[in-house]
């Protein structure tokens, strides 16, 4: 939707990020080496089924991983500065100011004993120090109006707000310090359809206004189609494909992305249901080779031996799948399209 021709400048670079959960029977490889860039002003959708590691990845990026989870490796660079290995004190400087979170079920993340305004004040004062009351109030009212909430919300407690209003209050808090990157973790999943649309529109407007970059985690492909510029598909701890949203919907390359797109129920036509099983392997002990081999309809011998590398099969569309082979001229073909292929 927005500027396509801008100089692509990565704001956030994630390199080989690994987040593991310790269990008595060995580590669960929840996020097992993911790479992606988030560009300026862009919204990136992170999708996948439950257990694919999308929320774990977000927490890893925010350095909010808590035991038994741990960051087992990799790099997270925000505007070139590495976040990993920063002390808790240094991280505080980053959180809210540069990196804000709209949590899953934001309705339960507000403090029930504090007025909405006091909670937003807390965020501002904690990071900017003492500020004149009058100025604070003006700023908070401005924030509330940015997210489409009436001024009277200023004096209300969270229980006096509806789910959608609470969610918007959380968005107001997330943008209070004008962050560079917002991570929205299933920010609208618990809302009614109509309210979800209102909150989603609020997020789009806020993004437009502030030019903030956003990572949107979710499983609703419909919502992704409406909101994001690019989509990264995760499966069992790995990113299997990243593509501009149109390419992902019109021509998904990875068999798992295809499955994900095909399983979106439509309101336009009734079609045969596509039945699949969930993640089938033990996440502590993934099979060698491709992570998707056990469910892949096109599995080949090579998939059981070697993990497929990420290849850019179309400008901006990266996929980790052995089905795609590079020609000499740099273009890619699907090996299944080649006649006589053994």
């Amino acid at each position, binding site marked *: 939707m927005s500027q396509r021709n801008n100089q692509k400048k990565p704001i956030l670079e994630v390199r080989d990020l690994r987040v593991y959960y310790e269990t008595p029977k060995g580590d669960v490889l929840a996020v097992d080496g993911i790479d992606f860039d988030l560009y300026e002003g862009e919204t990136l959708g992170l999708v996948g089924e439950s257990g694919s590691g999308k929320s774990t990845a977000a927490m890893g990026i925010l350095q909010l991983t808590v035991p038994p989870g741990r960051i087992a490796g990799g790099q997270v660079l925000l505007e070139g500065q590495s976040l990993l290995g920063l002390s808790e004190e240094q991280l505080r400087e980053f959180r809210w100011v540069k990196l804000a979170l709209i949590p899953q079920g934001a309705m339960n993340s507000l403090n029930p004993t504090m007025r909405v305004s006091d909670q937003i004040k807390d965020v501002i004062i904690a990071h900017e120090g003492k500020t004149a009351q009058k100025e604070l109030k003006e700023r908070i009212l401005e924030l509330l109006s940015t997210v489409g909430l009436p001024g009277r919300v200023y004096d209300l407690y969270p229980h006096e707000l509806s789910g959608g209003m609470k969610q918007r209050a959380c968005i107001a808090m997330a943008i209070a310090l004008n962050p560079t990157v917002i991570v929205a973790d299933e920010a609208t999943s618990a809302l009614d*359809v*109509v309210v979800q649309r209102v909150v989603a529109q609020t997020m789009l407007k806020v993004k437009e206004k502030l030019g903030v970059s956003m990572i949107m985690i979710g499983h609703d492909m419909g919502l992704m189609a*409406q909101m994001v510029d690019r989509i990264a598909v995760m499966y069992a701890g790995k990113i299997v494909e990243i593509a501009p949203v149109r390419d992902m919907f019109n021509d998904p390359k990875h068999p798992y992305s295809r499955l994900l797109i095909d*399983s979106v129920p439509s309101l336009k036509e*009734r079609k045969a*249901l596509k039945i699949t*099983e*969930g993640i089938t392997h033990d996440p502590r002990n993934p099979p060698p080779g491709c992570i998707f081999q056990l469910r892949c309809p096109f599995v080949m011998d090579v998939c059981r031996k070697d993990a497929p590398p990420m290849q850019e099969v179309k400008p901006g569309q990266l996929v980790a799948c052995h089905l795609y082979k590079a020609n000499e001229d740099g273009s890619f073909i699907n090996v299944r399209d080649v006649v006589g292929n053994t």
Partner: protein
Amino acid sequence: MSEMLLEIRNASKIYKQRSVDGGSRDVVALQDFNLSIPKSPASIITIAGESGSGKTTLAQLVLGFTRLTSGQIIFDGQDISSADAHQIKDYRRQVQAVFQDPFGVYNPFYRVEHVFSTVISNFKLANNQASRRALMEKALNIVGLHGDDVLRKYPHQLSGGQRQRIMMARAYMISPKLIVADEPVSMVDASLRASILDVMIRLKEEIGISFLYITHDLSTAYQIGDQIYILYQGTIAEKGNTINVIDKPRHPYVQLLVDSVPVPDPDIKWVGEINLPSDEEMRTSVNSGCRFYPRCPSRMERCLAAQPPLYKIDEIDHQASCYLYDENEVAAILNPKS
């Protein structure tokens, strides 16, 4: 009468809400609701609506968890409020339930097998080990699972989709006529939902079990439902054949609802912007008149006077509770003088 499996007549459910000052306030969860499900052919009837629309209240009423304030629920010719203990037991057998939370319904200490063996002993379905096992196997096969794979497992070792399918298998085992499925897929991954919906279709088509499918998700209803009832604050806003209603919604609320479902196509974006009225307005319960009045873009004076009845739209069973479809109203719009 016996043509109908389930008939709900003028059902109302009013909860008393006590307020801090000692007084009490009526919360109308369901008002003058009518529904009928024929004995055959089996069908999937969707009850859709947002939170607070009364859809779960309806499920609880049909399952007998709570009693009607007024009205009747008639199952197979028998009013369940006046049924004796024997009839109630039979009713509980004929009407089974599958709930929303596939994690909460299992006792984590027992293996999956326990779910089935409890049912088998309660309803005395089998008298020896071999036939018990055969029953389990048959039920599991219907939902696409195998006893060897799941019976010895604990609930936490299964995916949400598998757990819901096992619940469907459990319900099937008792050979009910009706399954009340209250949001059976909303806590299951999008990619696994199809497996549950498929089981519902198969139980309907192959075994002849009808479903009361309660959901907030129009798109799954669109894929599998026969009839749909869309509720708004305890009243029917619109009902009819699922495809007709969703393709061409008539009630302003249903139009807004259908329009708000995000289209999974990046080239079809939401058009326009909607605003919700401030909270006070939404909470003001309209005691008389249309419940959607505070939010309705085409509200009229008369909408406040009385709750609009269900008006017929073109199809035989497509009806909308909105004065816009009153013939007199249509005439008045065409000819403002009268």
